[in-house]
């Protein structure tokens, strides 16, 4: 019994010190990590809305509306034009390629894709990752919509990286579905 208490106390002590140390480090870097995340999402949203001459403004109410039907949505931005009117939307979402792709899709009021940007590219380096870096390939998505896209019909697949092409296409489709939901519910 005494042995058991001794063991538990020692283990507890080590864990307590470790937890304290981690809490300290976490407090040091937490704000920086959050700021980085926000900045990356916002700058991606701005880039995909740039063709509309709009600036992204994060919209928690749209996100709340869409979150239930689209669990892979990360955040929604309204594209605000010069006069403050909504000219389009930017969706930051997660899609499944060979690994995960976190991408921003800009959609205008008519449901046309205006911009694509990749925030996280975890695809196989040199294969899938090339797809996301290939502007010529990505540009074929621009101007498409509002109907859902089918790979190999509306857009080409990328040789040797079919999964990544599928991932990009399904991400764009998800954004188009979200645009439709917003229009139907009158966002």
């Amino acid at each position, binding site marked *: 019994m005494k042995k058991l208490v001794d*063991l538990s106390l020692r283990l507890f002590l080590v864990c307590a010190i470790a937890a304290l140390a981690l809490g300290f480090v976490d407090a040091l870097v937490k704000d920086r990590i959050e700021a980085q995340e926000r900045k990356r999402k916002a700058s991606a949203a701005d880039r995909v809305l740039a063709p509309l001459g709009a600036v992204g403004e994060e919209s928690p109410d749209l996100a709340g509306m869409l979150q239930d039907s689209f669990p892979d949505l990360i955040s929604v931005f309204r594209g605000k034009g010069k006069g403050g009117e909504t000219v389009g939307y930017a969706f930051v979402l997660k899609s499944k390629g060979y690994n995960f792709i976190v991408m921003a899709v800009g959609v205008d009021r008519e449901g046309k894709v205006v911009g694509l940007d990749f925030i996280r590219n975890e695809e196989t380096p040199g294969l899938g990752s090339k797809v996301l870096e290939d502007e010529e390939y990505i540009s074929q998505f621009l101007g498409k919509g509002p109907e859902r896209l089918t790979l190999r019909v509306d857009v080409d697949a990328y040789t040797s990286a079919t999964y990544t092409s599928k991932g990009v296409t399904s991400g764009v489709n998800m954004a188009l579905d979200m645009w439709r939901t917003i229009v139907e519910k009158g966002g």
Partner: protein
Amino acid sequence: MEERKTLWGELKKGILDSNPLLVLMVGLCSPLAISTRVENCIFMGLAVIFVITCSNVIISLLRKFIPDQVRIPIYIVVIASFVTIVDLTLKTLPAIYERLGVWIPLIVVNCMILARAEGYASRNEVKYAAVDGLGIGLGYTMVLLVMSVIRELFGTGKIVLFDTTVIDLKVRSAPIILIMFPGAFLTFALLSALLQWYQLRRKRFKGGES
């Protein structure tokens, strides 16, 4: 067979004679996965050096305090704490973190680090434990760098470090098998064979004395 320990000898041991990857063959999965880019390997190597050195020092300091029955949980708590510190720190550098992704948290279960804690740090003085960690960490990093240079250079035709192309072979298409998973095994096996051959030859020249 008590050999005299020197700090230098302990350091060198980790790099050559008991190189964690090529000789002991422990902790192989992260190097096979991330050695597609040199840049990743630099950060992964630094992370591993930090974690293994710090956890070796702490475990060696606590070796009289740690009861035998619960030593493994304590080792894991210590190692996991350092890994989490690295993980949190790297998260402030999103460009790197996104590529190393899951491999940083997985350093916790890297058997290389636990093996050094159990097999070395818990039985040796702090300074030897520190140097042992450093040596093993350096050995790991060097193998990682060599593998990634081979795989990135010949698999993609160029080496890109921090958005600048360092070497460009100017080829139209490179053998992508090298950056795919089979490439990892091929490169690793060749390197391992090369080191074995070198060690054997050295032994023979010295007349059987290692």
